[in-house]
């Protein structure tokens, strides 16, 4: 498929113009190359032509407008047909399998893949590519990959989210020991930059899914404050801890919780004053 779309013979094709209706809103002054390509595309669609020149045409259109979802749909289905034919002839070619995976991931539709690999395995029950393709054993690799990204930038919230995903969406459930280690990992990153919200959210998320309690963060929060490091995340965490204890009857901690909310609302996290005043009110209402 190396030919640019202009080099194909289009003499048999009558381009169909776009019908926007008379005097449409927000009409785009299309580039002539784009208009031409779309004109041919409409003509080929009408004939239901699936060919190499049709595939090249979709590539040209996507080059102009990568958000043209209809063209992507047509393009990817053409590709799947193309690969199907190729794999029948070359069932052990790495590139074809990879390419198919890329397409399938784009289509987000794995339903074909199980039957597809089944067909291949029917012919060759030990085809390594087909078996690999079927497994979902990314998990160990995923954690290593995520760790690299966190090291690169501890404020990368997406990487922290992926870490959570890799651990909790894993078919293997994490042990309590493993979760304890994760909390320690999170705490070590918090200490590097206590005003970075990502590891705080992560650690609290892990604790919520374990048998641990928020109390395990109390020492960290208090020591930061004592060192003169003001982090609204640390103070907010203390509010949560005090609230839990207030609900269990501790009047002293109820008071401490209220004071910490005031500290946040009036000094250290003023932009969120409404939120902290609400939290203060919730604490004050605890019987």
């Amino acid at each position, binding site marked *: 498929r190396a030919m640019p779309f202009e080099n194909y013979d289009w003499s048999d094709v009558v381009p169909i113009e776009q019908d926007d209706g008379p005097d449409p*809103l927000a009409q*785009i*002054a299309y580039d002539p190359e784009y208009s031409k390509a779309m004109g041919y595309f409409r003509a080929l669609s009408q004939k239901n032509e699936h060919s190499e020149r049709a595939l090249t045409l979709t590539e040209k259109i996507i080059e102009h407008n990568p958000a043209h979802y209809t063209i992507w749909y047509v393009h990817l289905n053409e590709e799947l047909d193309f690969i199907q034919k190729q794999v029948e002839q070359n069932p052990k070619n790495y590139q074809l399998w990879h390419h198919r995976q890329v397409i399938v991931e784009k289509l987000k539709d794995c339903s074909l893949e199980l039957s597809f690999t089944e067909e291949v395995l029917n012919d060759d029950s030990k085809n390594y590519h087909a078996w690999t393709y079927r497994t979902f054993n990314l998990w160990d690799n995923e954690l290593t990959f995520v760790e690299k990204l966190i090291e690169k930038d501890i404020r990368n*919230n997406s990487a922290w989210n*992926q870490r959570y995903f890799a651990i909790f969406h894993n078919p293997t459930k994490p042990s309590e020991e493993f979760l304890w280690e994760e909390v320690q990992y999170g705490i070590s990153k918090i200490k590097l930059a206590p005003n970075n919200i990502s590891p705080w959210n992560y650690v609290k*998320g892990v604790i919520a899914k374990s048998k641990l309690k928020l109390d395990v963060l109390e020492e960290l929060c208090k020591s930061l404050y004592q060192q003169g490091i003001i982090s609204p995340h640390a103070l907010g965490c203390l509010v949560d801890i005090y609230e839990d204890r207030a609900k269990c009857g501790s009047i002293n901690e109820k008071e401490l919780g209220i004071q910490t909310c005031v500290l946040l609302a009036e000094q250290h996290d003023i932009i969120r004053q*409404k939120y902290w005043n609400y939290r203060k009110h919730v604490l004050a209402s605890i019987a």
Partner: protein
Amino acid sequence: MGIIDGPCPLEQLFSKNDEYSTESSTQQSKTEKLVYDLFKTVKEKNSLKTIRLNRNSHIKYVTDGLKGLHRHWVVLDANKPWLCYWMLHVLDLLGHDITQELISRGVTTISKLQNVTGGFGGGPGQISHAAVTYAAVNTIAILGTKEAYDLIDRENLYKWFMKLKQPDGSFIMHEGGEVDIRCQAFDGGIGGEPGLEAHGGYAFCGLAAMEILGKTDLLDIPSLFRWASSLQMKLEGGFQGRPNKLVDGCYSFWVGALFPVLEAIMTRQQLKKNDANCKELDEYIAQPLFDREALQEYLLIACQNHKGGLIDKPKRSPDYYHTCYCLSGLSTSQHHVIYDFEKATSLNIEHGELNAGDRSLLWFEDETKILVLGDPSNIVNATHPIHNVAMPKVKKMVEYFREKPFSS
């Protein structure tokens, strides 16, 4: 509250990088500096009270766009309904009359986008797409005439929509397209798919959808409230879309509009817990739950392009998407739009369970809490927190379709 006249000197509001800078904190500092410079000028000139929304230049920006767009807008060729919605909604917000001629052109344009198999596509001959259909229907609401409403082929729309439904309960965007399920993340926000990072855009769509479905009790509301609050930037005043990312004017709506919905949900929960006779609202909950002045400061001072249109952040170019959502966010922060619980209760007693359309009509503006920063003429029209269409237009369309019951 607010930032420029707030208790804290501007210089103290810069983010602390804890002497450990990374790419994220470096980018954040750069953005803060840009906004700081603009805020500092306003503070020194003491010009906050006279700050102006450049209404006319934004109107011109959009009306020029409606006439025709430069070729580089080809990247939105599959998004015609979105373009129409963004532009027409801006006119509604700014109180600029949508003429008969514009309405007529709008009806024709949208009519070319509906597919016989149901739903709307992004351009003539394009297959139907769920997000695009949402934009087309919103556009029809804004056009607001019987002719526009009658465009919608409800029966086929419903059939097509149900074809998109997945076994796990989610919907794909179009045949062969990406899965779009909303899911609450560990930090309280909502992401695009289970396990994906929580994000302002998805959070709004997810929460609004749940409110329409009447299923908000399935969400962990306290942690969603906390996550949403955490996204307001203490120096810039605007919202980021995700933790540790940069402020962006469009999140003024996506995140900003979470608060009126959260307020309604929390009030509903509180009323349920109360004594049967106690209809008293909790003043800590029944109020705008974010810093409104700060958001308006960001939008008016940092998000207006001097030639017309609004922007993501200083130094960026305007586009119709940002113009729409910056102004929608401005509206959300100026007007306190709330849910009418009293009316809901009495309607419930009279008619039984209310459907989503009925509930859409129960939002109204509490005019005791209007807040317009700067010149009083900066006021824009109120927008519906669930639909992001002007309130009267929501009412008109729902009432029209209510007269024509539809059964699948």
